[in-house]
């Protein structure tokens, strides 16, 4: 019974979620497998955890405190601004910027760079999966 309820809840969550395209789905599955290999109790990516991660502050690569929001702003539907160069950044939310999270190579590149800049290390599969799950629903 518990299991059925779990499935229904999962199905409901998924039906509200925006869809990744096929290559991105494959990439997410890879992250999923990696997260599971690291932690056998892992049950799936979570947008709420991704949101918390996106807003959390860390000592970045430059030694100053920052978060993803420092450049992307706290409203993903609006654009942001590069903190170092003042160059505008287009909105991250796929609902207003359809090109976001559609290209695996771009996604991998920016996750690598931005985790290093904000966290001063690369992201784990769990962190990357969570934050992508948060962004795809924006």
């Amino acid at each position, binding site marked *: 019974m518990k299991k059925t309820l779990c499935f229904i809840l999962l199905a409901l969550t998924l039906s509200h979620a925006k869809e990744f395209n096929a290559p991105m789905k494959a990439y997410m599955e890879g992250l999923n497998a990696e997260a599971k290999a690291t932690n056998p109790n892992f049950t799936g990516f979570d947008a709420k955890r991704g949101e918390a991660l996106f807003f959390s502050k860390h000592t970045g690569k430059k030694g100053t405190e920052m978060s993803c929001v420092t450049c992307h702003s706290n409203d993903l539907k609006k654009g942001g601004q590069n903190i170092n*160069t003042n*160059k505008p950044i287009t909105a991250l939310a796929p609902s207003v910027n359809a090109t976001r999270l559609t290209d695996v190579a771009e996604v991998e590149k920016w996750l690598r760079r931005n985790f*290093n800049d904000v966290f001063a290390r690369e992201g784990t599969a769990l962190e990357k999966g969570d934050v992508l799950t948060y962004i795809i629903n924006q």
Partner: protein
Amino acid sequence: MKKLLLMTALGLSVAFAGSVAPVNNALYQKECASCHFGYQPALLNKASWEKVMTNLSDHFGTDASLGKVESEQILNYLVTNAGSGKITANNTTTQITKSPYFIKEHRKITPNLIEQKEVGSLANCMACHTTADKGSYSERAIVIPNYGRWE
């Protein structure tokens, strides 16, 4: 003949009015100009570009790392079109703003004009050089925020 002379004179005057070949490489534009102004290859010499491209994972304090293929293609574009002569003379750094010529050309710009939020730093070419993206740094095209035309 007269026409040719005129053309030559025009060409020379443009060269001396601070013009460089505009960026004409889509990969460079996409990968480098997504975070900052797309600096024309002629603004640094070959050795400087080589230094920049070997250390992209710590690019002025941020991670700008690229895949091997993209990195090689961009390096090739940069060194093929790298600068020489007065613009890059005696600049052994990886910063365009450290070139003696650049410093001389910007010596009259007061710190308040540079530090204001519309500009931020001398690396933000487009803030004042309205045609910088076309490779033209002509004095006639300079409009400094909260100051006006430079000429």
